[in-house]
Structure formats: structure tokens, C-alpha cells
């Protein structure tokens, strides 16, 4: 299976230096676990970040040099000989960071897409089985028709970084024809200022019921009734049996 990992021009959120975003490292790990040849694809001039991505296991990174809409450039490049699998991180790090590119690409290519992928399974009859990660550690099995686009979950297992692989990776610059320009994003841009989150919406309850020196049986009864009222015991009945 031929896999392609989309690489953004990522920067480190703290230092601002080029770095591979966490989600793209997870995407490289997923692509390697699927087996076969894995290449990287980046739109724009190559930077240190693309070489670093090689350190996580990519053999070759193609940098597509050409002006205009990245989605159009990628769609033209990917449709020439289409790969089986295109992987991306949850969102880029350093640009618009909206996480829209895989979705726009899937819409343009007419391919199916799944987000939050934790693991890749086997291929059967042109269907790829994947595991999706949900909040609270829940998992969901899904099947998707190949060729497809998968967005990696940020918590998907990441491959180790090997410095020697980063030195030996082949970074190739490919000149492509210009695509139509993207519309200018309006608005005022300025340095980020952290704003406090709303408080009080979850805040400490405080001043609750206090039960002083009850009998143990009475304490247990009150405790259980309180936990039931909070709805903490409803779904855990099944879990307690097979645990």
C-alpha cells in the first residue's frame, strides 16, 4: 500500500522554530504501521521541519513549489498516480491552523475521510479498517473505502525520532504550475494574548451536605444514593462485572 503524509510548514508553539507538529508525527506513525512505501508531501519551500519529519521514518519528502491554492496543487499532484492512503495531522501548526485542508482535499478529490484515527488495521476487498479515538478513552471501529484520507488523533502512538534518518532523508523540490490564488483572509492579526476561560460554570460546589459521625451502614447508604443521583453508577454496572 502506498501512503502519503501531508506535512505542514509547522513551527514550535513556544520557540517559533520549525518543528513537526504532534499530529503529523502521529500520522507518520500510522502510515508506517499500514506498511508499504511512505512519502511526505509539502506545499511550499522545504524547511528544517520536513527534514525532521524524515527522522520519524519518511524515506522521501516532496516539496511542491508553486504559487496559489495549496488544495488545488495537492489535488493535481495526488490525482496523477493516486496513492492508496493520504494521512494528515489533526491541524497544521503555524499557518491558519483551521484543520480544513484534509476536508477540502477530500471534497476536491471525492475521497472519503475519517478524523481522529488511532490505529490502522487490515485491508479487505478495498476496505480499510481503522480505530477511532473518542473522549474518555472510548474507541470506535470503522471501515473506509480506499483510496481515502485519514486525520490522525493527536494521541496516536508516535514513532521514535532517529537523527540518522533525518540526515539521510531525500528532500526533493518539485516545480508545479501555479494554482488560482486563495482569497485574502480579512481581519486584524496581532500577537496572541491568553484570555481567561469562563469561571464558575464548573466551579467548586462548596458548602455541601456534611454528615457527622454516622453509622457506617448509614454512611454507605447516603454515599451510594448521592452517587446514583449524580448518575455515576448507571453505565458502570456492566464494567464492574467483567472487571
Amino acid at each position, binding site marked *: 500500500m502506498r501512503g502519503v503524509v501531508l506535512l505542514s510548514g509547522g513551527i514550535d508553539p513556544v520557540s517559533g522554530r520549525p518543528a513537526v507538529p504532534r499530529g503529523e508525527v502521529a500520522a507518520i506513525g500510522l502510515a508506517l504501521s499500514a506498511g508499504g512505501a511512505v512519502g511526505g508531501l509539502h506545499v511550499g519551500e522545504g524547511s528544517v521541519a520536513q527534514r525532521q519529519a524524515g527522522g520519524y521514518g519518511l524515506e522521501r519528502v516532496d516539496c511542491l513549489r508553486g504559487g496559489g491554492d495549496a488544495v488545488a496543487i495537492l489535488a493535481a499532484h495526488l490525482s496523477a498516480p493516486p496513492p492508496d492512503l493520504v494521512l494528515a495531522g489533526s491541524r497544521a501548526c503555524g499557518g491558519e491552523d483551521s484543520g480544513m485542508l484534509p476536508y477540502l482535499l*477530500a471534497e476536491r478529490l471525492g475521497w472519503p475521510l475519517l478524523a481522529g484515527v488511532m490505529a490502522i488495521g487490515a485491508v479487505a476487498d478495498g476496505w480499510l479498517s481503522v480505530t477511532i479515538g473518542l473522549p474518555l478513552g472510548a474507541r470506535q471501529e470503522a471501515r473506509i473505502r480506499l483510496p481515502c484520507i485519514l486525520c490522525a488523533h493527536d494521541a496516536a502512538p508516535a514513532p521514535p525520532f532517529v537523527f540518522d534518518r533525518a540526515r539521510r532523508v531525500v528532500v526533493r523540490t518539485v516545480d508545479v504550475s501555479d494554482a488560482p490564488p486563495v482569497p485574502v483572509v480579512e481581519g486584524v492579526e496581532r500577537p496572541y494574548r491568553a484570555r481567561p476561560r469562563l469561571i464558575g460554570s464548573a466551579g467548586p460546589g462548596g458548602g455541601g451536605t456534611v454528615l457527622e459521625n*454516622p453509622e457506617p451502614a448509614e454512611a454507605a447508604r447516603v454515599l451510594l444514593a448521592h452517587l446514583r443521583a449524580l448518575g455515576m453508577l448507571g453505565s458502570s454496572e456492566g464494567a464492574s462485572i467483567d*472487571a
Partner: protein
Amino acid sequence: MTGRPRRDPRAERARCLVPGGVRPRLVRAGWDGVLTAEAGPRPPAVVCIEEPAFWVAAIVETPEGRPDRWGRQVLGAARVLAGAEGGVVALVTGVEAGHGVGEGGADRVVVLDIAIGPEAMPGVMLAALAPFAPRHVVMAETPAGGDWARRLAARSGWSIQAGIEMLNARQALRPVGAMRRERAAAPARVLTVPIDRVAPYGGMRREGRGCVPPDVPVLEARVQVGPVVLAQAAEMPLAEAPFVMAAGQGVRDFDSFHALSRFLGATEGASRVVCDAGLMPRGAQVGASGTVLDARCYLAFGIAGAPQHLQGLGKVEHVVAVNTDLHAAIVARAGLAIIADAQAVMPALLDLLREEG
């Protein structure tokens, strides 16, 4: 003596007094309408809006049958964008999903089937939104909501602002460039809201009138999604667990503690002292130098609540404490505090759970 009749202030006051109620209440404007209203419990005032100037859509996930905190904040964001003239239509994904949406600020409610797969969702949403032609669509930046928002924006070609951190009717603000820059711009067509960024609606209750969901033919699916498999409490990462049960220095009977956590389906945590003593693994430590919890409920046995420990409970909604010290800090934080020895309460609770099967 003038011929003017004398006033009787006491009689005037008695005439103005409304009967019933503990505190005296005066109605100087007269009695009309007061007695009839007092006769029964007054129904809450409901704002009905027939023909708003424009619509704003909110897509609300209701995992528990009614909008949770995040869902109410999404409705609040839609209400901010709608202002006084606009109406809010809520697309609710759930089965018995009509409750609490009107209080949240929705004028119309469309219930969507939760079984719709991610691939078909944008088509269904566009069909449901078509009669309203909404000016904005607001969603929560949850894994599912963020996915739907991006699919919807990609399918319809609408502009999107994902993860806005501040919102008013004129501008929305979101971080860009790896959270090192921020951009303020007019609110886009599609917006996603992270948790605790926009306040929920606090005004008068809205009508929340139900509308008929669209009938969209299901096309050949290229994505098949299976059932959700919930995680086992024992294997869940502490930072993600919804129900954490923790042991402090007051717990000596760890067999009962482990048995109880299995029965209750809770993830185990511990205070620093217990981890230092080697009685629980270091990964179970809750607090400033351990894990900060995101749980819904925290059940603390024998924990006094040092400030460094309470820092780990920052986002926990419900705290339940069993402790021998009435003046411990955790008793002040707890919704239910039982002043008793954990060694006695844990076996009693186990017995009660075993009795009930």
C-alpha cells in the same frame, strides 16, 4: 381643623398588602391581575418569535438527553450572534433531545438522528438548514462537532472560523500561527466554540418549537462506523477518567479500596503521601505534581485536601469526601462530606453493593 379627611396610613398599607407569602408585599398599583396571577403557580414567561429578521443555527450534541455545559455555551454563542432580531434554530443530535434546549435559548428545534454517519452528516445538516438559510452556524469544537463543522464548510464552501476564543456580534477572535498570533475578524458563516469560552444564554426562556427533520435519502456509504466501545475504568488515563476514586493517608485497607473501585467502576487515584509510601503507583497521584483531573465526580477516602492536592481537582464538578476531620479543607470543597473513618465506610459500602447485586 381643616375640612380635609384624615389619612389612615395603616389601612392604606393593609389594602396594598398581598395575602399569603412569608414576607409582606405591597402592590401600590392596584389589585387588578395580581390575585388571578397569585392563584396558581405562574408559568415561566416564554419568548416566542414568529418571523425573525434572520436565523442563526446552533448544532448541539446531547449525550445525556439534554444539552450539557458545552451545548448550552454553543446555544449562548448563537444567541449572541442572533441579537434581538434574529432567531436561533438548534439542530440537536440525540434521541430524546427536546429538553432544555428552549431554556438554552433556542427558538426552533430540529432533532437529527444520532445514527447518521459522519459522511452523510453534512448533507443532512444542509437539508435541515435549507428552510432557515442561517447567517451563521455555531458548533462545539468537540471531536464530533469539529469534524461536522469542517465537513459542512468543505461541502458548502462556507467560510469557517475554528476554535474562537472571544465572540460578540461584530467580531470573532481566534488563535492562528501555532497559538502565537491571533486574528480578529467579522464572524464567519461557520464557527466552532471550545469549552468555557462563550457564556451560556441567561435570558428569558425561548420557545424551542419542534420542527420536522428533513427526509434525506441515504446514499451509498464509503464509511461504515461501528458501535462505540467504552473504556475500562481501570485502564483509563487518570486525566481523561470521568469518575475517580482516590485514597489518602486515612486509607490503610487497600484490599477494600481496590474492590470498591472495581464495583463502582471508578479509576483509582491517590494523594502524594500514599504514592510516596509506595502503596499506589506514581501515575495515580492527583494534584499539582501529579495529574490534574477532568473528572465529573471525585470520591476521596481519607484525604484532607492539601492545597497542592486540591489544585488537581480544578475542573471536577462533584466532590464526595469521607474523612475523620470535620475541619479538613476537602470538606469545604465537597458536595457531600461524611465525617467517618474510611476503614469502616468502605466495607459497609461494599456490603451494600454486594447485597444489591
